[in-house]
């Protein structure tokens, strides 16, 4: 890449038209070409760069600034770590962390393991596979409001479908979203149904890349199905499994729409208040943007570790 150095002499630009390759002994020509090439290249970039500047890069900077500022009556002052101290003293802060970690843990247990098992099973079928893949991905395409409100009906303790099924099976009926002990699990179940299609299809694609000879070799050594999964399938898909694990941790720790729509956000006794819902409350219910930004910064720092690991892993996979 040849970077033009700024020169005081203005270079008359050649009229547009069929360019012939410029001879090497014409530095002025070469410079003007490089300049024109750069101007047009940046012209192509300008729309996206402006959007990123206003709606992505500037808010990123602002997020950090806000976390250390306080705005009262239109006056902004620096308050140092006071916002951070304030949120750390809020009992909801620790409860929100516990809930977020519980949600992430449950969501991984279901949302990470279940799609992998489903993918392994689907990969064995020689018939109906495209129909099954279609089904698994269907919920991903629904507007979240539709799937969530639908689950809200299923969970209804009075006339909900789930209690109807439990009743028909003579099992004890549950309070689902309305009890502190089952609210979060109910949210996770709905979220898993809504979101697991993507992971399943990605695993399925990874499984189809495993060379068949590896299974044959394992069979010669007398390996059964579970030994084959352990010694061939998992090592062969390790990279994509770890990438998906990181991605799911990052995504589930930011969960908002599902608990917000299912339980109104907080749930019974705050049992479904997540960190992002707390950010929402600070910003839009309490008008405490400093506190919201400080909370966001804590989440950002925590997730940055996972993001960095993800970037490193995916870069390694490109080599």
């Amino acid at each position, binding site marked *: 890449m040849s970077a033009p150095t700024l020169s005081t002499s203005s270079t008359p630009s050649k009229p547009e038209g069929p360019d012939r*390759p410029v001879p090497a002994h014409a530095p002025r020509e070469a410079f003007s070409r490089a300049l024109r090439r750069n101007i047009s290249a940046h012209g192509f970039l300008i*729309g996206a760069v402006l959007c990123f500047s206003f709606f992505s890069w500037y808010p990123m900077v602002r997020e950090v600034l806000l976390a250390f500022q306080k705005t009262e009556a239109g006056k902004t002052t620096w308050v140092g770590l006071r916002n951070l101290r304030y949120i750390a003293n809020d009992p909801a802060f620790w409860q929100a962390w516990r809930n977020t970690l519980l949600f992430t843990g449950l969501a991984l247990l279901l949302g990470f393991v279940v799609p992998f098992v489903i993918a392994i099973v689907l990969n064995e079928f020689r018939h109906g596979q495209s129909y099954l893949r279609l089904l698994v991905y269907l919920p991903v395409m629904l507007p979240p*409001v539709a799937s969530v409100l639908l689950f809200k009906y299923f969970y209804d303790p009075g006339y909900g479908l789930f209690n109807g099924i439990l009743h028909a099976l003579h099992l004890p009926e549950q309070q689902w979203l309305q009890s502190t002990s089952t609210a979060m699990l109910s949210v996770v179940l709905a979220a898993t149904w809504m979101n697991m299609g993507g992971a399943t299809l990605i695993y399925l694609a*990874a*499984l189809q890349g495993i060379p068949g000879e590896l299974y044959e070799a394992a069979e010669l050594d007398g390996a059964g199905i579970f030994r084959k999964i352990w010694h061939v399938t998992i090592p062969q898909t390790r990279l994509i499994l770890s990438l998906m694990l990181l991605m799911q941790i990052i995504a589930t720790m*930011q969960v908002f729409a599902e608990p917000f729509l299912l339980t109104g956000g907080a749930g019974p006794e705050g049992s479904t208040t997540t960190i992002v819902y707390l950010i929402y409350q600070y910003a839009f219910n309490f008008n405490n943007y400093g506190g919201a930004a400080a909370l*966001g910064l804590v989440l950002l720092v925590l997730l940055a570790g996972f*993001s960095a690991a993800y970037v490193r892993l995916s870069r390694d996979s490109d080599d």
Partner: protein
Amino acid sequence: MAERTLISPAQLGRPSGKFLYWSALVVVLLLFTLIFLGPLYWMVTGGLKTAQEYAQSPPTAFPHSAHPKNYSDAWNVMDLSKLLFNTLYYAFGALAFQLVFDVAAAYSLSKLRPIFGKVILGMMLATLMIPATVLVVPQYLTVLDVPIVHRNLINSPWVIWLPSVTNAFNIFLLKRFFDSIPRELLDAASIDGASPLRTLRSVVLPISRPILGVVSIFAVVGVWKDFLWPLLTLPDPAKQNLNVGIYSLAQGVPENWLIAALAMASAPTLIIFLIFQRNIMSGLTAGSLKG
């Protein structure tokens, strides 16, 4: 489909293997249909029930009598045509902005390679590492009063369209595809006197149709499914999209109407999915696996 998978063809070929295979297949087919189509069936038939039947315990699997009028009532009372129009307007506007700005940016970064191009690409990709929800608060404050131009974008379509351009993942997908277009093809065009814009239009875009399809679907579906951002930035009921509009009306309408509304709100994306399923699924795995 893989040639050879976990279970050996010899095992499958035996009579007991065949029996197990077919019974497992039938069980999985039934189970999956129940789990994934069941709720959709519930939604569509729930919308046909009377309010009484809907609130009945235990719930009924088949509506006693069909009331399609629920659908038209919900459509009129919740003003779904307006919500649907708004959503389409936002989604396809966002698509147009992304196709123009993101394609141009990816083309420039991939083929024109300006100075600082690598830095700009790096800064764009860095936004992928920032959790989206963390940025919601400062983004919201930004659209209340956009710096330099001092405009308030709340309740205007720009508040959806412009931020949608900052889709680093789509830029990344496009750039990677453009990178794979041989240099010689573009050089030939430029020797023939084509400007970069002309080269983009008549050489690059025609061969990029598959990736443009994937990116377009992601762009439309992304806006269609978004909830938190439109909830914050489109408080005016006349400007809301389907997600937010239905959410805010949910408390005030009979439940059988609401569920009919949900069924109607789900139909467009499901139809898009059924038509473009091949592109969507291949785009999904192309974005996550290398290559």
